[in-house]
């Protein structure tokens, strides 16, 4: 049994991507860094769907379509977040989340 015909290999790789993404969200200081880590998490989810689709699913079209939807949502999310970052940058003139403390008493 080879590695690439084994479901567990893909699942563990997707788990690694998820862990790295969560770690990046915690560790990154900038909004863009957090967005990059979010893309890693979404990509791990897509890899999981494709792996289950290849090895277990009765209809192999479903996983591919769901992965396509994840890609579409990720693209929309990236566009919206970039425009948020632009608006926030205009108001606070910084990309550092710790500088935005208007509501802090």
């Amino acid at each position, binding site marked *: 049994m080879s590695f690439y015909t084994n479901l567990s290999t893909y699942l563990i790789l997707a788990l690694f991507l998820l862990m790295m993404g969560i770690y990046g969200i915690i560790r990154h200081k900038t909004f863009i860094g957090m967005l990059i880590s979010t893309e890693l998490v979404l990509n791990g989810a897509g890899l999981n769907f494709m792996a289950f689709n290849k090895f277990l699913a009765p209809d192999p079209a479903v996983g591919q379509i769901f992965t396509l939807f994840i890609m579409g949502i990720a693209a929309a999310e990236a566009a*919206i977040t970039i425009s948020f970052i632009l608006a926030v940058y205009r108001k606070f003139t910084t990309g550092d989340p710790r500088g935005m403390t208007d509501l802090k008493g």
Partner: protein
Amino acid sequence: MSMVMDFLFFGLVVLTMAGAILAVRGRVLMHAVLGLAVSLLGVSGLYLFLGSPFLALMQVLIYVGAVCVVLVFGIMVGYTPNEEAEKVPMGRNAFLGLMASGSAAFFLVVMVISRTVWTPAVERLNDFSIEHVGESLMMQWCLSFELISVVLLIAIVGAIILARDGRDEVSR
């Protein structure tokens, strides 16, 4: 032949993992985007192994081609190009605790994955071909297909409205 495939697969796995580590640990923000692009390319190669050349091409087109370019634009607009991706300051104990809980969770899930007995479907309805993907996209999943186009339209319009909001104040 199998040897070559093994080699190729390990290359793609190493590419994906190295890209993910660079995306998270990169010192300069641009390097993080580069790491993300490398990682996404590796995953698109894995999609080839999973029997879907269409998804591999879409991954390169949408993720590497569009999302990464949008991220580069964001860095150029909001930050300096070689902005340090400075990390949140974290005490030694907090870092060790994060590492310990993270690796414990990782090994628990790996144990669950390796212990589970996966049962494949009894029979396959159709094959992996792009014809069937398009067919079920138009028949079975038509509503979701239309909804995601609405979501994308709203995202585009919303992005334009959000981004041009400050401009009026400046011109006034």
